[in-house]
């Protein structure tokens, strides 16, 4: 029997060794740099969006990113939704009308498509009519849609922030592809997008510093909202559900205890 016990130990050791074999090449496959650690107001079980930050983030998106990046799933009306930037209805109407592009509508009575200023019910009009046009204007690269991008990347908001502030000179000896820029947070290190943000580029009227870092942070928060517009409602309901379940579990614990008191088990 003790021999079998030794055999057992041997097998356990084999398992441990094979696990150790695995641990070595963990970072071998040219993995990306982990994003910078950055704090956002929407983190944690009670986190909420910072309205001012979302409004500033929208401004950065509209004036800079929207030139190349579509946001097909978000409508102007969403900018006034509870739990979002919460622009007033009047502001939403102005933002829709003043978006850098007009909305393609139609066909009209003559069967022609026409352009008109945006309305709150419109979705953000895309910068390019199709993917081929987008690639043609961006030296072959396709600027991804931004609607859910913050959920489509690991550690989304921190990744977007890191990427935007992470442009730097390529390490000595590194050969960049034509039209590519070095960014160690981007998978592969070479990104087709030129550094998009510069200090003082977008005007903030609420006294927030107009720096690349602040723009990046505000935009990351805004993109988190577009990806997860029901985050505040989710956490609010979550807390109510948790309180209910914990209280119910407590009551059931004592009920069960009383019920089973006279049973040997």
């Amino acid at each position, binding site marked *: 029997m003790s021999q*079998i016990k030794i055999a057992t130990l041997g097998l356990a050791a084999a398992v441990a060794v094979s696990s150790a074999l695995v641990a070595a090449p963990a970072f071998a496959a040219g993995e990306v740099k982990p994003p910078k650690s950055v704090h956002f107001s929407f983190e944690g079980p009670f986190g909420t969006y910072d309205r001012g930050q979302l409004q500033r983030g929208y401004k950065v998106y509209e004036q800079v990113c929207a030139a190349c990046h579509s946001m097909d799933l978000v409508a102007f009306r969403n900018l006034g939704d509870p739990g979002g930037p919460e622009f007033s209805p009047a502001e939403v109407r102005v933002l829709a009308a003043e978006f850098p592009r007009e909305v393609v509508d139609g066909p009209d009575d003559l069967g022609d498509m026409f352009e008109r200023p945006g309305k709150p019910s419109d979705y953000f009009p895309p910068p390019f009519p199709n993917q081929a046009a987008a690639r043609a204007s961006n030296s072959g690269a396709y600027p991804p849609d931004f609607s859910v991008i913050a959920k489509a990347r690991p550690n989304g908001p921190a990744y977007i922030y890191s990427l935007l502030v992470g442009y730097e000179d390529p390490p000595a000896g590194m050969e960049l592809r034509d039209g590519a820029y070095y960014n160690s947070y981007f998978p592969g290190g070479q990104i087709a997008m030129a550094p998009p943000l510069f200090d003082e580029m977008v005007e903030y009227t609420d006294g927030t510093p107009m720096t690349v870092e602040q723009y990046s942070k505000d935009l990351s928060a805004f993109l988190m909202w577009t990806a997860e517009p029901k985050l505040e409602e989710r956490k609010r309901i979550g807390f109510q559900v948790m309180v209910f379940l914990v209280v119910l579990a407590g009551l059931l614990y004592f009920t069960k205890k009383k019920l089973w008191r006279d049973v*040997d088990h």
Partner: protein
Amino acid sequence: MSGQSTYHFKNPAVRWLDSRLPIISAMKVNALDFPTPKNLNYFWTFGGILTLFLGIQIVTGLVLAMHYTAHVDQAFNSVEEIMRDVNYGWLMRYMHANGASFFFIAVYIHIFRGLYYGSYKAPRELLWMIGVVILLIMMATAFMGYVLPWGQMSFWGATVITNLFSAIPLVGEPIVQWLWGGFAVGNPTLNRFYALHFLLPFVLAAVVFLHIWALHVPGNNNPTGVEVKSNKDTVPFHPYYTVKDFLAVIVFLIVYAAFVFYLPNYLGHTDNYIPADPLVTPAHIVPEWYFLPFYAILRAIPDKLGGVIAMFASIGILFLLPWLDTSKVRSAAFRPLYRQFFWILVLVCFGLGYLGSQPAEGGYVIASQILTAYYFLHFLVILPLLGLFEKTKPLPGSISESVLSKDKGGGPTDGGGGTVAAAAASAPEKRG
């Protein structure tokens, strides 16, 4: 479940109904008065938890189906519309997506409980085999459900898994095209997966009914593995186990709710928020976490057909388990060696899960091969031999006896079987 009612109901309407269709007395026999061993621990509450999760998946799934569009051009956006514009649509979707994960957490605990306490042994072989069928249907349903949002992992996961069938000699290629309804994963594939994903849960419900039926013939196993000897060993299911199961359900729901409300995307893959693109292959195609151990086994074998066979065999072997385990003793509490091998198997399964999440290269492949070999060794060699050579501990005379001896100061029944048996032996006056 059938037969003449022995109950006499006072209410004439109930009596009228029950004498024509004994549904009330069947409920009373099977759900209320059902004699259940009184020593079941909390690992026995997962059957109830699983039934609840099947219900949650069907209800949330029905709501989602009312808003979802199964078309390659619209599926991704229709899911996002559910998240944005449908009232509480985000809640339905997050409950459904995380519900699948927690369904699997519960089913794996349920299966390993069966392995630990020998619940698959006679006379419960068929009960166990129906359970393996349930696992297979669950896996098929979950796989097809993951394809529906039509993200990158949906598309590429579907491509990888359906391509497995091309390993079948001669007819592999035609079979895969038949599965796809075309020459690649496309709109016909999405449509049929949607139809099957809607159908299979109801098949599952029917098989669960058979599972419970097969359970109610011999009754529950229990932590001692000793059969019920007299009614002193049992308590009626209601209220004792309805209340205990209810408590366990709520505690399990607390963990589930923590994911639904605070970490809704933690168990998913970020790539599935990128719309499916047949022209862009993701860097690493990985299945959902609950398939990772099987994925590791698939990739451990260098030959494609061999890998597919090994993967299906890793589940198929469970059908033979009641006969591979030759030990007369059910519970690991009285099988000191089996208990160690059980925990090694648990570690091996976790190890395979980890390896399934890593790229198939270098040391990962070697480790997968070692663990895969061990997995099959456990069932094909260790279990048959253990039954012949293992020296088991003396069993208690009955459930009541083991319970009473525990109260006299022995260790807990689970994991301390030796002390239970010893205490029982030293207190012969309690016998009978």
